[in-house]
């Protein structure tokens, strides 16, 4: 295991090193928060879930086995957190509030706003499973197999989610956006 890799840091964190765990948080926070933003559609709700994800990862670091990638492991925790949050009616109400607040604080950059609106429009059409699969495959450049491992789903299911999500997304985009 190469020193300085996520997996080597995770091994140190397993021995109780909070400094190693801090490096892991620093390296993976963008991935986890970005992934959760695709799933929830809300930056505030995603950041709350991301905090819980890393906290749970710290509690469970003892059970981490360096068989797969650390990224896959942490994404799986994030996805499980998202699913649990979704099941909770109370949390859903809180998330709705966060969506409202987000709508008021959307960034001013015109191109950014346009891109976010397109993405929001696409995400709204997708099921959570399709969102998760597409966020990992398109957003994070993971292979189908890596996404399947991270989400704890069969490979064929992930392929199907990506294929159907892709069809829906392309249908939602205007011809200008698709063929320009």
């Amino acid at each position, binding site marked *: 295991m190469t020193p300085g890799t996520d997996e080597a840091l995770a091994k140190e964190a397993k021995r109780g090193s909070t400094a190693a765990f*801090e490096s892991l948080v620093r390296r993976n926070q963008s991935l986890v928060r970005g992934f959760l933003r695709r799933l929830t559609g809300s930056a505030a709700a995603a950041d709350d879930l991301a905090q819980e994800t890393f906290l749970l990862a710290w509690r469970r670091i003892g059970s981490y086995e360096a068989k797969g990638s650390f990224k896959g492991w942490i994404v799986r925790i994030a996805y499980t957190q998202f699913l649990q949050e979704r099941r909770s009616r109370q949390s859903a109400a809180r998330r709705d509030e966060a969506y409202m607040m987000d709508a008021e604080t959307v960034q001013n950059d015109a191109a950014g706003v346009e891109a976010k609106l397109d993405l929001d429009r696409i995400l709204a059409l997708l099921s959570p499973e399709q969102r998760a699969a597409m966020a990992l495959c398109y957003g994070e450049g993971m292979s189908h197999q890596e996404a399947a491992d991270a989400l704890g789903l069969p490979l064929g299911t992930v392929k199907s989610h990506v294929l159907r999500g892709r069809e829906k997304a392309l249908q939602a985009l205007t011809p200008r956006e698709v063929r320009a």
Partner: protein
Amino acid sequence: MNSHWMTNGRDPDDDALLRAMFAEGDRPPYGDETFVKGVMARVEKQASSAQAWRAAAAPALIAFGAAAFYPLLGPVGAVIGQAAAPLLQNAPAIGAGGLSLLMAAAAAGGAWLYAERT
């Protein structure tokens, strides 16, 4: 990580567009220290409270163990002493009280080790 699979039998421009949208839209910055500090503050708090719990739990476990097993120490010590007597014929005699003390010390050590590991 690879993405060659995306072009199999499909328009690579469409995939490039989707990749760009998913990768660039609203992504949090790398090395966002505010977020990292927020997480680590909670992690440190959790780590220190776990340590404090262990520190408090070890003596509590020992005290509980001693209180729970104290009435049994005498009879159990006598039984073990009797059973071990043939083996200890040439050794200095250990009375039931001495054996009880040894057992209590071993139980306390075990409880402390358990508390340290959990």
